[in-house]
C-alpha cells in the first residue's frame, strides 16, 4: 500500500476513458434515444390523429347513411303518390273517353235514324206518285175523254 506512480497512471487512464466516452459513447447513444423518443411521440400523435379521423369518418358515414335512407323513403313515398295519381288520371281519362264515345255513337245513331227517315219519306213519295199514276192510268177512258176533248175543240 504505497503511494506511487500508479496514481499518475490511473489519473491518465481515467482521463482517457472519460474523453473516449464523451467522444464515442455518449453522443451516439443519447442521439439514438432522443430519435426513438421522437419516433414514439410521433407515432402516438399520429395514432391519436388517426383515431380522431376515424371517429369523424364514422360520424359522417352514419349521417350520409341516414340521409340516404331518408331520401329513399321520400322517393318511395313520392313514387307511390305518383302511381296513385296516374291511376286516378287514367281512370278519369277512360271515363271521359267513354262518355265521348257514347255521345258520338248516339249522335251517329240519330243521324242514321234521320237519314233512314228521309229515305223512307222519299220512297213514300215515289210510291204515292207511282200509285197515283197506276190509279190514273186505269181510270182514264179514251171515249169520254174524247167527247170532252171534242167539246174543248168546239169551244175554240
Amino acid at each position, binding site marked *: *500500500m*504505497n503511494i506511487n*506512480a500508479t496514481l499518475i497512471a490511473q489519473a491518465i487512464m*481515467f482521463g482517457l476513458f472519460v474523453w473516449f*466516452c*464523451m467522444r464515442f459513447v*455518449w453522443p451516439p*447513444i443519447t442521439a*439514438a434515444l432522443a430519435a426513438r423518443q421522437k419516433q414514439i411521440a410521433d407515432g402516438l400523435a399520429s395514432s391519436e390523429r388517426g383515431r380522431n379521423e376515424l371517429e369523424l369518418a364514422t360520424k359522417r358515414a352514419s349521417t350520409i347513411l341516414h340521409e340516404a335512407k331518408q331520401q329513399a323513403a321520400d322517393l318511395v313515398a313520392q313514387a307511390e303518390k305518383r302511381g296513385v295519381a296516374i291511376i286516378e288520371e287514367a281512370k278519369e281519362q277512360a271515363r271521359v273517353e267513354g262518355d265521348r264515345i257514347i255521345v258520338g255513337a248516339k249522335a251517329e245513331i240519330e243521324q242514321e235514324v234521320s237519314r233512314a227517315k228521309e229515305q223512307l219519306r222519299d220512297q213514300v213519295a215515289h210510291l204515292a206518285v207511282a200509285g197515283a199514276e197506276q190509279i190514273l192510268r186505269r181510270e182514264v177512258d179514251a171515249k169520254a175523254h174524247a167527247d170532252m176533248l171534242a167539246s174543248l175543240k168546239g169551244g175554240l
Partner: protein
Amino acid sequence: MSSEAISSTEYIKHHLQNLTWGRLHDGTLGFAHTPEEAKEMGFWALNVDSFLVALVLGGLFVFLFSRVAAKATAGVPSGMQNFVEWILEFIDNSVRSSFTARNPIVAPLALTLFVWIFLMNLMDLLPIDFIPMAAQAMGIHYFKVVPTTDPNVTFGMSIVVFAMILYYSIKMKGAGGFFAELAFQPLPKAAMPFNLVLEGVNLIAKPVSLALRLFGNMYAGEMIFILIALMGATWVSASVGSTVMFGSQILLSLGWGIFHILIITLQAFIFMTLTVVYLDMAHQEHH
C-alpha cells in the same frame, strides 16, 4: 494457501501486497518480491496488477459501450443496446437531478466513473485465492486483483475530479470569485483567515473523502473475505471442528459475497453522485 508453512499473518500480508514494478535495491528494474522491497522503490514504481486490471476493465467498458454506440439505432434495440441504454438513462437521470448547469462532460464522466468503478469493485467477488494462485503458478509473486483496494487507484480518480472542481470553479466564477467563495464565507470578511482555513479544509476534504471512502470500503470488504478464507485454512484433519470451520467459510463467504454485491454497486454510485454534486457546486455562483 500457497504453502503449508505460511502463517495467517503472512497470508493476509501476501493478499494485501500489490505487484510492484520499479527500481530494485541493486539498481535494476524488476518486480518487488517483498513488501519491504516495494516500499523501498519509492514513488517511481508501478502497481502492475492494479494498473493492468483497471486498464483491462476500463477497456472492456469503452469497447462494449462504443460498439453499441456505433450500432445504436432508434429502432427496436438489441439486448446489449437495451442494457447499455438502461445504464445510460439511469446515469443521465441521476446527473440531471443533481447537476443544474450545462456541461457536456459531466454525464460521460459520471458514466465512466460508475461503470468502471463497478467493474473494478466486482473483482472483489472473484474467489479470493484464484487469481493470486494462478499468478503464483505463472511465477508472479503477488497479484491483488481488486484495483479499488489500492489507494493509488482511488486517489488517481479523485485527483482528476479535484482538478476538474478547481478548473470549473475558476472558469465559472473567475479566480476572484473562487477566492471570495473560500475567503468571505461563512463568516463576514473580517474573519477571512478563519474562513480560508474552514473552506480550504472543506475543499481538500472533497477528493480525500471521495478516494478514502471507496478505498476503505473495498479494502475492508476484501479484508473480511481474507479473514473468512482463513477459516478453512485451519483444516488439520477430518475432525468435527475442521469440518465446521470449513462449512462456515463456505456459508460466510456466500453471505458476505451477496451482501458485497450491494456494497460494490453502492460505492460506485456514491463516487459518481458525489463527483457530480461537487462539480455542480463548482459550477454554481455562491449565494
